[in-house]
């Protein structure tokens, strides 16, 4: 990154770019310029300070939701079992030929 672009990023980062970098930081290390840009932006932006924490919470909540186990309703199980029965019979016929 050119010096000019680095300085510009440090001084003019907007919420849109700041939250993009926060999102990226969950899957890669930010560069020093990116990290400092976010920090400088957050000094003057209470929304982004809060949003940073809240976006972490969103991921955490999504993972809590993702591992929640619930029983498959009986009628769903019954319908799937019937369809599987058809698929198995088709496979049997193919094998017999």
């Amino acid at each position, binding site marked *: 990154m050119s010096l000019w672009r680095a300085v510009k990023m440090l001084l003019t980062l907007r919420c849109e770019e700041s939250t993009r970098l926060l999102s990226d930081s969950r899957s890669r290390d930010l560069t020093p310029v990116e990290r400092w840009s976010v920090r400088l932006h957050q000094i003057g*932006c209470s929304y982004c300070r809060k949003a940073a924490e809240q976006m972490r919470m969103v991921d955490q909540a999504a993972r809590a939701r993702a591992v*929640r186990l619930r029983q498959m309703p009986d009628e769903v199980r019954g*319908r799937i*079992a019937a369809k599987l029965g058809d698929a198995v019979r088709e496979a049997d016929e193919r*094998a017999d030929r």
Partner: protein
Amino acid sequence: MPDPPDPPEVDPQGLDPRGAGSSDADGRHFASEWLAEHGDLLFSYAVSRLGGDAEAAEDVVQETLVAAIRAYGGFNQQSKVETWLVSILRRKIVDRYRAARRRGDGEAETALFDEHGSLLDVVDWSEAAGGRIESAEFAAVFDACLAELPPAHAEAFAVVVMDGLTTEEACSLLGVTPTNLSVRLHRARVALRKLLQTRWFEEK
């Protein structure tokens, strides 16, 4: 003329993974066992990734098990059946999202930033609400919020944040570049922050 030899016996219980001596490499003897043992997990998994759409979840679980019957020959016996079934299911879920994208569902994205690129409406969140993210009530709210995202953003969020795929895995599964994935994840996270704030976390 001598009778032809009996066909090799197929293990009726399906206890031997390869069906003793059976020449077919498919998994038809295991289908009902898979449904019995992994049905709840597959169904729960699909419902949560598909924004609570139980009908769509039923379809993808069924498609997964039918596909698994055919694909069983390629199943590496070293890995867990459950892991293998989930990887097939994930593809079916992505196919589903792709179809929604082709239909142009959910193209209208809500405004997340103002014309200067500034965030809108960020308020303090209730700690009490944050303590209840493991409840069934929260699960239902979360599902409704995920369902409101454009399909391209929802699927990116589902496979990366909920499934825990790496950037490389997610890009190859979704057929997108890392930059594109980054944009989608960003939009999904900002939108979910906003939706969850209104429907769950806001101090009332």
